[in-house]
């Protein structure tokens, strides 16, 4: 019988629309994080971006808090940026900053699942799975308030998150 895991490697995709000083921006992020039970709370620790975390009473609550915390960071960048260029620079730097020690724990969690050493318990067993090595991590920052910009409903995206899979 396999032991329940305490750490869970997840990937996520967020799309945010942010109003700044004289600009409107869209930020599409594909990142990774570690879900862990620490101090009798559930925590989502950012791996990439690495400079963020948040907690909740349940895995779902921690994820919801993490999602909101992520948007708040973007709003802070917007408040401090004089223009779109500064905002884009700050967002790119934030997303690019990998937490290397967290990445080690994340990779261990991926390998534990991939090798079959451990199986995801509820509610993680209900999450979609993706291959950690094939996920395209990074961020796209677009300026939306430009002339001739054509909007379509096909550009709408719902948040996604998944457990890294076991091949």
């Amino acid at each position: 019988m396999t032991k329940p895991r305490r750490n869970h490697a997840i990937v996520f995709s967020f799309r945010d629309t942010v109003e700044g000083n004289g600009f409107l921006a869209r930020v599409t992020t594909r990142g990774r994080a570690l879900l862990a039970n620490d101090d009798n709370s559930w925590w989502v620790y950012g791996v990439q971006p690495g400079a963020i975390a948040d907690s909740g009473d349940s895995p779902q609550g921690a994820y919801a808090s993490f999602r909101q915390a992520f948007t708040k960071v973007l709003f802070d960048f917007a408040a401090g940026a004089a223009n779109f260029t500064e905002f884009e620079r700050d967002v790119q730097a934030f997303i690019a900053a990998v937490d290397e020690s967290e990445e080690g724990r994340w990779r261990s969690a991926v390998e534990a699942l991939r090798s079959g050493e451990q199986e995801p318990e509820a509610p993680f067993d209900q999450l979609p799975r993706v291959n950690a090595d094939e996920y395209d991590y990074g961020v796209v920052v677009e300026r939306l308030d430009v002339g001739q910009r054509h909007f379509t409903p096909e550009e709408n995206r719902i948040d996604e998150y998944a457990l890294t899979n076991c091949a």
Partner: protein
Amino acid sequence: MLDECAEGYEWVDSKPHNFQVKWKDKTYPSLPKGEHGKSASKIEIERGHVRKMARFFDILDCAKKALEQL
């Protein structure tokens, strides 16, 4: 803790939602401002956030010595 483990750090208190900490070439932009608002003398930040920041800055061993509760 930062005084001991991240000498020369910069504490930024000008953002709407979070404190920022800058040290060396890294920025930690997501220390949430709690219920006590911006009063630096009443800052309460969950230790998970502090532990995460310490890991990000690679100063966790020093931080644990400075803050036993970590």
